[in-house]
């Protein structure tokens, strides 16, 4: 009896070993199953988290010549001899989710943009792969100054919406009017409309929009807005066919179908074919696209398939057929992709920053109210050392809040103090502030759970590493954690945590979007998230907010940055790059820092 039991156990064991043993795979199974708790690894379906989610980092813009050190192929098909683009074929691309809404004005996350920006186009857009260069799309040219209040757009001739109606000034005016008059129930989801225009109706910066002739639109602002063009280059400001808007009752939050059904109201290189929630978004080539045919669109059909779990997403790419490209490869999987001859890793340089938030008022009379203690925190951190283990080696130390891919970086960062890793200096500063081994500064450090972000792939791991560094410099740290969206963010932004992780992915390239949003006054008071109100900052902001021309504005924000970093109001940590992966026959994909990535130039090579 016993021997039979052993025999059967042995048989089972042999079977298991046989299956796994001899055929040792070249690449281990994608991802460690244990590490990927469902839903925890992937940002939960926060449909409207503006820009942050999968707003990818920066791409290797050909102009700047910034080839990432890691040697990743800057965009696919950049290898010489890739050949002439071939028309045809179907590309299945794996994202993490489908669009939260099919109405571009009501979207604010990267996955929604990914789909909708193939179908809908704004007046102007960022140049391919760029963060700051503006090019005309539906507007062929425009007149206006950052310091002015009038912008005139000359529309492109011969453009038709997918429903056949023509693009003209009236259509553009109708769209501006629509944005200005969103019913109250829809306003929360029209985040970017509100953010860029400052509000709706009377609160909007838009004073009037007029069709001054058939193909010319004049927009008058109530006050100058230096980043006006950058703002309206965002996908939510796409121009939609007024006929479609009316037909689909876009203004009716209950009976309207524009936000839930695909439409033929766009002008983009791809048209809607079908949309199945949680399953696929299917687009087909727009044969009547206004652009130069030599630039695309080349694909017959583009299918976006949502695969929320990163391991499953990579496996979908590894399996033959089906998915041929994915986004948001987990940093732990970069090596797998690089070692696989059938896959190509494409790095996307970042447009995000992880920062260690400091709130001196969270604890009354706490150590962090002393600037020297805050500076000690900055000196105690070896930020470079975090990049390899947590970002798969792809990222860079953040000297200032804005990433180097920003067009403003050089000028805004000039002369801003950076805190190099120096534990001795940290201890010195703490001693100056009256702390030491028998009287260590006691602080709490909070990190979020149930979230990953491009700038924060592993909140807990990063927290633990950082706390070790802080303790080495003499801090006494207690930890806390809370669930991201529901507890952590409200607490962090209302001064309840001493120190905490947060980050920012830029909405568009303007220094106010970084420094202003976080440190400028809100209703006359400093933002309670940081309670950072050092001398000179309010005046510096006043100057910055009334500086519109580039050089002037850059210099003004340079001053803002200098004051903030001198006072160590927060510690900018890392810019986290992200990556896509493709099968080698997919050519022409150009990653962009802000996620403004078009499939127009993508083609499938038949040769590989």
């Amino acid at each position: 009896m016993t021997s039979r039991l052993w025999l059967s156990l042995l048989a089972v064991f042999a079977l298991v070993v046989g299956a796994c043993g001899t055929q040792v795979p070249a690449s281990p199974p994608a991802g460690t199953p244990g590490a990927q708790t469902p839903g925890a690894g992937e940002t939960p379906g926060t449909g409207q988290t503006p820009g942050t989610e999968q707003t990818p980092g920066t791409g290797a813009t050909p102009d700047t010549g910034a080839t990432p050190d890691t040697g990743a192929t800057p965009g696919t098909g950049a290898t010489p001899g890739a050949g002439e683009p071939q028309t045809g074929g179907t590309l299945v691309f794996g994202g993490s989710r489908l669009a939260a809404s099919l109405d571009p004005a009501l979207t604010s996350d990267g996955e929604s943009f990914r789909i909708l920006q193939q179908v809908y186009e704004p007046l102007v857009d960022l140049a391919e792969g760029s963060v700051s260069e503006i090019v005309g799309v539906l507007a062929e040219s425009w007149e206006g100054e950052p310091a002015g209040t009038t912008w005139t757009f000359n529309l492109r001739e011969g453009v038709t919406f997918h429903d056949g109606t023509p693009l003209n000034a009236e259509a553009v005016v109708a769209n501006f009017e629509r944005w200005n008059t969103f019913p109250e129930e829809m306003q929360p989801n029209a985040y970017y409309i509100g953010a860029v225009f400052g509000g709706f109706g009377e609160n909007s910066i838009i004073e009037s929009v007029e069709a001054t002739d058939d193909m010319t639109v004049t927009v008058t602002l109530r006050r100058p807005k230096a980043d006006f063009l950058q703002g309206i280059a965002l996908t939510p400001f796409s121009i939609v066919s007024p006929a479609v808007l009316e037909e689909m009752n876009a203004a009716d939050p209950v009976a309207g179908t524009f936000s839930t059904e695909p439409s033929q109201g766009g002008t983009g290189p791809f048209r809607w074919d079908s949309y199945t929630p949680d399953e696929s978004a299917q687009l087909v080539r727009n044969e009547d696209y206004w652009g130069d045919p030599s630039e695309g669109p080349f694909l017959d059909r583009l299918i976006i398939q949502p695969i929320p779990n990163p391991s499953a997403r990579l496996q979908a790419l590894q399996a033959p057929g089906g998915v041929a490209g994915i986004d948001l490869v987990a940093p732990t999987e970069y090596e797998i992709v690089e070692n696989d001859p059938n896959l190509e890793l494409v790095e996307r340089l970042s447009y995000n920053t992880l920062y260690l938030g400091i709130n001196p008022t969270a604890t009354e009379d706490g150590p962090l109210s002393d600037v020297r203690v805050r500076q000690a925190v900055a000196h105690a951190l070896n930020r470079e050392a975090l990049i390899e283990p947590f970002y798969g080696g792809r990222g860079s130390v953040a000297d200032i809040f804005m990433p180097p891919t920003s067009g403003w970086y050089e000028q805004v960062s000039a002369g801003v103090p950076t805190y190099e890793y120096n534990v001795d200096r940290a201890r010195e500063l703490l001693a100056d502030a009256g702390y030491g081994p028998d009287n260590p500064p006691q602080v709490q450090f909070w990190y979020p759970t149930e979230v990953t972000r491009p700038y924060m792939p592993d909140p807990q791991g990063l927290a633990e590493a950082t706390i070790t560094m802080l303790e080495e410099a003499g801090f006494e740290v207690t930890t806390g954690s809370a669930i991201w969206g529901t507890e952590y963010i409200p607490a962090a932004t209302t001064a309840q945590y001493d120190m905490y992780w947060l980050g920012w992915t830029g909405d568009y390239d303007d220094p106010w979007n970084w420094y202003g949003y976080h440190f400028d006054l809100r209703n006359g008071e400093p933002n309670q998230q940081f309670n950072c109100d050092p001398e000179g900052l309010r005046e510096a902001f006043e100057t910055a907010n009334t500086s519109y021309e580039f050089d002037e504005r850059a210099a003004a924000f340079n001053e803002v940055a200098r004051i903030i970093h001198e006072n160590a109001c927060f510690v900018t940590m890392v810019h986290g790059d992200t990556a896509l992966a493709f099968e080698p026959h997919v050519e022409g994909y150009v990653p962009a820092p802000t996620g403004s990535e078009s499939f127009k130039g993508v083609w499938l090579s038949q040769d590989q």
Partner: protein
Amino acid sequence: MTRFIVRRLLLLIPILIGLTLLIFVFIHLLPGDPATTILGERATPENYARVRAALGLDLPLHEQYLRYMGGLLRGDLGRSFITNRDVVADFAQRFPATIELALAAMLFAVTVGIPLGMITAKRRATWVDQLGTVGSLIGISIPIFFLGLMLKYLFAIQFPVLPSEGRIDLAMQTFPRTTNLLVIDALIALDFRGLLDVARHLVLPAIALGTIPLAIIMRITRASVIDVINEDYVRTARAKGLPERMIDGRHVLRNALLPVVTVIGLQIGLLLGGAILTETIFAWPGVGRWIYDAVTTRDYAVIQSGVLLLALIFVVVNLVVDVSYALLNPRIRHS
């Protein structure tokens, strides 16, 4: 019988009311709300207050509950706070995917589990039985997540014979989705290539999801068969000289299956709601994943109505099981 059914259906009402209350209390006990998820990093106190007001979240709790119940009575189960889609429409759109997966998993579990249960019961205490026991224990204890990933790795990547995720090859021109039960839709369209594609996509997730029910069904069948085999009427049948096959079929199995049917019913109910892990690994667009996402984003309407609908289906399924149990077992039918 009819009275039995009617009574059970009437009981549904207090059950469901109690459920709505329970779910409502639960989701409001969770910290956070949809406003925080909508805003993410961009939550300023003003934004936050504005969004909450727009979503009706600043109303007192009992008012929110009554609003919801009022909607229920009108047949309006609410809209998602995040996507603004109608909850019932979203549920109806995803539910066929979940049913199909659950049925496929059940089919696998039953067609393999019951015979295995029979065999191990009849060859009790032999090496066959030992092997079966060990096998079923492994089956019950393997985490679905791990099993799913391993199955995918082995059969979709290393030896690519099956697809790795999804319900269907998206790039293929497909048949129209009349019911969204793809097996049925393919048959209706007489698209046999499509049918094969759908079936191939069902294999791995069905195995991953069905392994635990398989193990359970196998063990219950085994126990039940062992009981029945020792009954007098089986011995009598054997003494009468009936062929073993007939005894197995008509006397043993028929009686042994009664508890198994109950277990199957319970398992289907669980599979319908609990396939979250499988749906995640295999990118299966079902209800489990949808509700799980809703819980993470605190999409109240989806959680409230989604769970309610699932509970309703669960109760109905069990009613059907109980009725069929009565039909199968004349002793109950006539009691």
